[in-house]
């Protein structure tokens, strides 16, 4: 009897070990699921603060985890572009016909609402930039989620600490918290909608980012149209293409 219980316990332990995921595994899978070789999207950003609501529309192209180009299409900002290439960020204003490289504290400025330039400078390859650790489980909007702490190891990231909530069921990011170096909560990210694609890949199609330092300030980023693996011009992610 004792021997049978011991074998059963050993088998259960083995099964648990086989099923257990480390924080690294979860984050690596998260990166894989959200990275597309080539992607074209059109979307809307809605920023709300005490002065009211502001909407911007955009179209964006991305290649892998690093190269990214966004062009605003609403009347007020039409033609403004932000390019991330070779880990550098550039702005283009059509009126000035000038390209402005963004560095240092300039990256903290708002790109749109609560989304700063530095928020979009972070590509994937999360494990190259953060130490990750599993903090446990937590319920997020009725979903059982892994709670993962990410501590920055690289100077190239804006937030020294992040906490991610990843659904255990489908490994999809459901929420995130961004913290300052002092430990103060800066931003809350709430993933509202997700779209699935072939190959087990997903896209967060509606995300709300709430600024915890500025009451009543939030930004919703919504993706209205997606084209996975589009044909992209070779020089799309170059300074020349901004003009």
């Amino acid at each position: 009897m004792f021997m049978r219980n011991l074998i059963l316990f050993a088998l259960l332990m083995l099964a648990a070990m086989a099923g257990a995921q480390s924080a690294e595994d979860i984050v690596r899978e998260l990166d894989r699921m959200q990275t597309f070789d080539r992607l074209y999207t059109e979307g809307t950003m809605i920023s709300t603060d005490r002065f009211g609501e502001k909407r911007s529309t955009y179209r964006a192209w991305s290649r892998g985890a690093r190269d990214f180009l966004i062009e605003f299409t609403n009347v007020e900002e039409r033609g403004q572009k932000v390019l991330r290439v070779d880990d550098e960020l550039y702005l283009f204003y059509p009126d000035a016909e000038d390209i402005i490289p963004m560095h240092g504290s300039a990256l903290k400025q708002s790109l749109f609402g609560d989304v700063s330039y530095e928020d979009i400078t972070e590509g994937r390859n999360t494990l190259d930039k953060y130490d990750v650790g599993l903090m446990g489980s937590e319920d997020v909007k009725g979903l059982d989620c892994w709670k993962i702490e990410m501590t920055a190891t690289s100077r190239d990231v804006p937030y020294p600490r992040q906490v991610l909530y990843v659904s255990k069921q489908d490994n999809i990011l459901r929420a995130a918290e961004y913290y300052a170096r002092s430990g103060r909560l800066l931003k809350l990210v709430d993933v509202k909608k997700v779209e699935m694609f072939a190959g087990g890949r997903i896209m967060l199609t509606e995300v709300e980012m709430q600024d915890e330092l500025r009451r009543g300030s939030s930004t919703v980023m919504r993706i209205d149209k997606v084209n996975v693996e589009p044909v992209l011009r070779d020089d799309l992610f170059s300074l020349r293409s901004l003009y």
Partner: protein
Amino acid sequence: MIFIPKMAMLNLARYKKRTMITAGAISYGLLMYIITRSLLSGVDTESIQNLHLYETAAGRIMAEGYWANRETMPLEKCFDPALTVPMLEEAGAAYAPRISFNGDLIFFKDPFPEDGSIPGRFTAVDPERDADVFEVKNSLTEGQWLKNGEQGLVLGHWLAEDIGAKIGSPVLVETQTLDGYAQVIDLEVVGILNCPNPEITRSGMFLPLSVANDYLEMGGMVTEMNVSFGNSSASDEQFAALAADVEALKLEAVPWQVLGADFVAISQAKAGSSGMVILLILIIAGVGISNTMLMAVYERVRELGMMRALGMKDRQIRSLFLWESAGIGLIGSVLGTAMGMLINWPLVRFGLDYSSLLRDSSFGYRIQGQMYGVWDFSSIAIAFLLGVGLSVLVAMFSTHRILRLNITASLRFQ
């Protein structure tokens, strides 16, 4: 010989109204010249003083490349202030290390009237050493000065008024560490200052160096070392003499003229424009003088014809008119400089209140509220000589035209 000047003076007395009108035109021109010069020089002098005392000192030592990238206030362009201390002490300079950084000042309703945030430039100062170089500490109007280690913030008076900050109000400063990580500093407003430099009163935000050092993770580095040689008249030369030693440390020494380039540019532009203003004043005065002198000469053409018929030589007539115009110029100059000095006295003593105009923009000048004049005696002397010289010049021209007429034509002149 004395006959001509005596006759000229009699003529001036005889045509009192004309004499006073012409002298009045001269004196008005000179009055405007003296006041304009006084105020413009006063603004310059005070701006330079307020730049030195509240913003730039004699100059600033920075890491190489910081000044070129000053718009972004790059914290990574920092240096160990201890490197510069031996050199500065040997030169007999007072010095104050500072860290300047960009950030957002965030505040919330209760105790503030509204939630809000404003981007701005924060200056972390050594609470003790800063007073050796700057007068910021002595401009406190409410609360107390910063203390090392205390998470306090001192705000400019206008800024505090705009956001509704009071002593004891809690605020947050959102910024980045030296490594570029997001950082938030909890501070409490401990002091409000009102200084003569509008840039500081409008947007000054000061916190202790030790707090910035901890939160920005600077490891004892600073972004600037401000240098002062007190009221020394050779201050600029003394600062320039540090350049070689500073370069040897792979740092750069930036003098106040470069740090306050916006003011220097406006001052230079002003020098050009004030020259234009003065030229216009002189033209207006010159036209007035020439007009009245011409009238004076033309209404006496027949009288001149008769004098010439009686045997008076052209040279004597010309001399008579020059004496008359010099007399008018002298009266105008005496009146003009006297009135100018009289009006300048309250400008020097009490100034003009421009606070409502200068609050939103001081046009690069570092004056706040009161615009003071100065006693610029060289300008007053120039004004005096100009008054006499201009009248004589105009009279020469007018007399020359009259003397071209022959005697009979002069006698028949209507």
